[in-house]
């Protein structure tokens, strides 16, 4: 039997995607379909005085908050966000009213006027007093550390919003069912998040709500929690009209209304000895959550847990808070708080190296966390900690030192970043999720039943590889069921770089038990002899993993992936444009189950990071995105991305299938600091992203 794990098998979803038959939600239709439109607030903050419908209502289904059968909220962490605004709005583009009609032109022409009594909005997170969540991490005694320092360096680092820009916008198709239930098909990452939210909104029992993932054209976290809102809207219209309803956003609406990466302001005050050791880290993290809480507490949490960077220090204080502003709520986006704080940490460390006259690689070598070291929360790192491995691999492979020396005083720059990413849910998150996955024996092989979603990252393929090898069956006979809450158990959301490590781990255990039960029988023979066979496994935390949510002490994650980016840039002195010319990256991910897929995640995450670092800027005016078109919010094209040299390093994690950790998010985390550090090597002091030509020109003049 040829092993599947570690091999570039034939991607399960490849054929349909290249021949145009893959079914995304806008490709779906039903008889009697109604199209839908969302009427949204045009002011950032105020009371709704009057809603006027100045059109012929024949054939229209109209839904407002009063039509909600259950509770008017988007069920997530804190119950503060309404599904439809009642009498006040807290952000621009907040949904107020829903319309459906079978004729899209009537929808376009429907004139709805909303009168408001505006209130004064809060846009500046530093001025906001409404705190969604605070986090405090402490280790040692900060004052003691500062006493040991020869030098204290301070700095403030800023990052702005980022738009996911999945090429497929959000969309849902809701179909009312006999008996009052509803089925919804959509572009989504987490069918059970949507399921839970719909049960609450529609006041329906669990088996009356069915959520099915359509082929999903990109997520990156942007389809983690937002789909619950658009699904709720589609379902409300479907239930009221009794007809199937398709609600698909166009690009402008998607950019205006849906979640973005949390902007951040991170301040460092760091004590360092003359020989380059970090002895005190005092870090303040402020994130802008937007108008409602959504996932902000967890974003802040992960951000704070990565705020020191992959470095050891005996005296650490991290204070973080995420606050409300009257802007559209921010949410999950690849990296989930870590990119913001890792940016600050590694740009700050570069400035420290500069102040000490120390080589940037050397200062990272001195301070990098090693196996057996303890993190700021008191977690002892295992033998799979790989900071030095990736640092050395990337530095050597890129010929960093020779280039840095040769390019001094020229328009070419080179920068390094070292970073890490905790795999899986933070702290006790995985325990609380209680994820399950199942395997079902079929006459020809086996079927994977998990709520994990393929969103391009290769989930279907990786899960099939793990199961195939554990069962001793060929990869081709493993089928992966479409995530459908009527069929698959709740394996938790497809987020947090957990899909291979956690859910893959569950499936491996299912397969091992199934193999034991089958003995020498083929699937067909077993079914004939014994009847159906379904094995289900539930999450069990690795032994000894202890975390305290109140004190923020213990093992924050089961393990971490480690990575190092070396990025080369070239500046054009005429325009101050800085172009990335090469990326060399070493990424330690435990085990590359599907090497092509892992490489694809690294390359894609890197490109997205380059966009955030250099050209992606959400321009906010009056609390709304002013550049909500692809012409004006720009992401990298083929001419904006450099060649990428990827090295995958494997230091197996004892509790991941075949040693696998996570890979989906980490590649994004280290790009921005490496780019800004490369710009710094040109003699330009940048402390925020995006490092646009305008900002570089300004910084060059001062």
């Amino acid at each position, binding site marked *: 039997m040829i092993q599947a794990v570690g091999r570039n098998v034939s991607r399960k979803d490849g054929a349909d995607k290249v021949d145009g038959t893959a079914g995304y939600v806008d490709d779906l239709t039903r008889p009697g379909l109604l199209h839908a439109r969302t009427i949204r607030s045009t002011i950032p903050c105020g009371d709704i005085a009057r809603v006027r419908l100045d059109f012929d209502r024949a054939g229209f289904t109209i839904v407002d908050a009063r039509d909600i059968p259950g509770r008017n909220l988007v069920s997530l962490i804190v119950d503060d966000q309404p599904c439809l605004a009642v009498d006040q709005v807290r952000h621009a583009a907040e949904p107020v009213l829903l319309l459906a009609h079978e004729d899209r032109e009537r929808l*376009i022409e429907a004139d709805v006027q909303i009168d408001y009594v505006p209130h004064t909005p809060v846009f500046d997170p530093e001025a906001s007093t409404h705190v969604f969540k605070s986090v405090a991490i402490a280790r040692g005694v900060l004052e003691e550390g500062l006493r040991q320092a020869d030098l204290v360096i301070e700095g403030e680092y800023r990052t702005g919003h980022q738009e996911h820009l999945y090429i497929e916008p959000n969309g849902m198709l809701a179909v009312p069912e006999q008996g009052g239930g509803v089925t919804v098909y959509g572009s989504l990452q987490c069918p059970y998040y949507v399921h839970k939210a719909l049960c609450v909104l529609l006041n329906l029992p669990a088996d009356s709500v069915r959520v099915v993932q359509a082929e999903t054209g990109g997520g990156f976290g942007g389809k983690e929690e937002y789909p619950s809102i658009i699904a709720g809207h589609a379902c409300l219209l479907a239930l009221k009209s009794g007809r199937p309803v398709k609600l698909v956003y*166009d690009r402008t609406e998607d950019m205006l209304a849906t979640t973005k990466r949390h902007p951040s302001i991170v301040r460092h005050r760091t004590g360092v000895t003359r020989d380059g050791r970090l002895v005190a880290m005092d870090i303040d993290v402020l994130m802008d959550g937007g108008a409602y809480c959504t996932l902000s507490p967890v974003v802040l949490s992960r951000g704070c847990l990565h705020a020191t960077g992959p470095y050891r220090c005996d005296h650490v204080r991290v204070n973080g808070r995420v606050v409300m502003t009257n802007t559209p709520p921010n949410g999950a986006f690849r990296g989930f708080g870590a990119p913001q704080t890792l940016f600050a940490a590694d740009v700050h460390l570069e400035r420290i190296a500069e102040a000490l006259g120390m080589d940037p690689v050397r200062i990272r070598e001195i301070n990098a966390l090693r196996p057996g070291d303890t993190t700021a929360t008191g977690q002892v790192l295992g033998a799979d900690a790989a900071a030095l491995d990736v640092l050395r691999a990337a530095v050597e492979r890129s010929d960093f030192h020779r280039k840095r020396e040769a390019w001094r005083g020229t328009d070419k720059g080179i920068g390094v970043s070292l970073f890490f990413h905790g795999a899986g849910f933070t702290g006790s998150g995985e325990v609380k999720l209680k994820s399950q996955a199942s395997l079902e024996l079929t006459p020809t092989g086996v079927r994977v039943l998990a709520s994990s979603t393929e969103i391009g990252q290769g989930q279907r393929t990786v899960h099939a590889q793990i199961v195939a090898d554990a069962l001793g069956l060929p990869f081709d006979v493993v089928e992966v069921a479409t995530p459908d809450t009527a069929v698959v158990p709740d394996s938790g959301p497809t987020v947090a770089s957990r899909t291979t490590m956690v859910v893959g781990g569950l499936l491996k255990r299912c397969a091992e038990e199934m193999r034991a039960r089958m003995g020498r029988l083929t699937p067909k023979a077993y079914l004939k002899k014994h009847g159906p066979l379904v094995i289900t496994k539930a999450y069990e935390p690795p032994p000894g993993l202890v975390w305290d949510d109140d004190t923020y002490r213990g093992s924050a994650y089961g393990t971490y992936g480690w990575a190092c980016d070396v990025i080369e840039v070239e500046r054009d002195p005429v325009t101050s444009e800085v172009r990335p010319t090469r990326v060399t990256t070493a990424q330690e991910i435990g085990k590359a189950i599907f090497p092509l897929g892992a490489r694809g995640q690294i390359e894609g995450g890197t490109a997205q990071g380059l966009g955030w670092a250099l050209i992606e800027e959400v*321009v906010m005016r009056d609390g709304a995105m002013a550049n909500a078109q692809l012409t004006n919010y720009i992401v990298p094209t083929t001419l904006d991305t450099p060649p990428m040299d990827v090295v995958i390093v494997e230091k197996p994690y004892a509790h991941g299938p075949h040693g696998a950790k996570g890979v989906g998010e980490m590649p994004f985390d280290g790009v921005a600091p490496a780019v800004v550090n490369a710009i710094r090597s040109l003699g330009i002091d940048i402390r925020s992203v995006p490092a646009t030509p305008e900002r570089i020109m300004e910084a060059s003049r001062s």
Partner: protein
Amino acid sequence: MRTAISPLALVQPRSLGDALRLLRDEGPLTPLAGCTDVFVGLNFGTLRDRRFLNLWHLDDLRGIERRKGVIRIGALTTYTDLIGSAIVRRHLPMLVAAAREIGAVQIQNRGTLGGNIANGSPAGDTLPVLAAADALVELRSADWVRTVRFTEFYTGYRASVRRPEELITAIAFPAVEGAQWFRKVGTRAAQSISKVVMAGVRATRPRIAFGSVAPTVVRVPRTEGALAAGASIDQARAILQEEIRPIDDLRSTASYRRRVAANLLAQFWSATD
């Protein structure tokens, strides 16, 4: 798609003459060439026009020829046609350079020179080339033909001397003496709107034009005059920065545009030396 299609009309003329007659007698009609701008407005729901005249099949509006040094380019010539034309590559390389920088392949295959002019955006990438080349715009109606100097074509932001019953039918380029230069500074390397765009011809009296630094494409006569009179490039840079009127907008800032325009001037000057 934010515009209802049903109330719209697309009129199909049988010939150029028919199109001109329709424009005169059955307006208002918005001419449609490659649609790469008009349809963005339709998709966004920002276009108020309701009646359209299809020009796409009128081959009389295509063709590139050179006679007695003058190059005549049909209004429906696409950017791809320009890039592939031996005549344009040989005699108007700055026009090829501009065509390559517009959008990407898909836009270049449909966007037309006439459309770029009629659209009249101050950021239109071919427009500085036409200005620096002192091109002539041929306008036809059912009843007359006239030629307007490109440098006199625009009267203000997206406003021109073209009358509603006229079509831009061709653009004529007198022979260009001197080295040609073009550079677009966009928001990224492809598919971008310019922040500053410049075309220049290094003649005894240089001809220099900019886009995205004023409500229309502009020549910079004071800067040209200074250089012709022997001013240093530093003096010319200073004059230029006073002569143009860039603004802050979604894509860039006035101060960036001003500085980059001056840098482009210097780059042009040393590249064409």
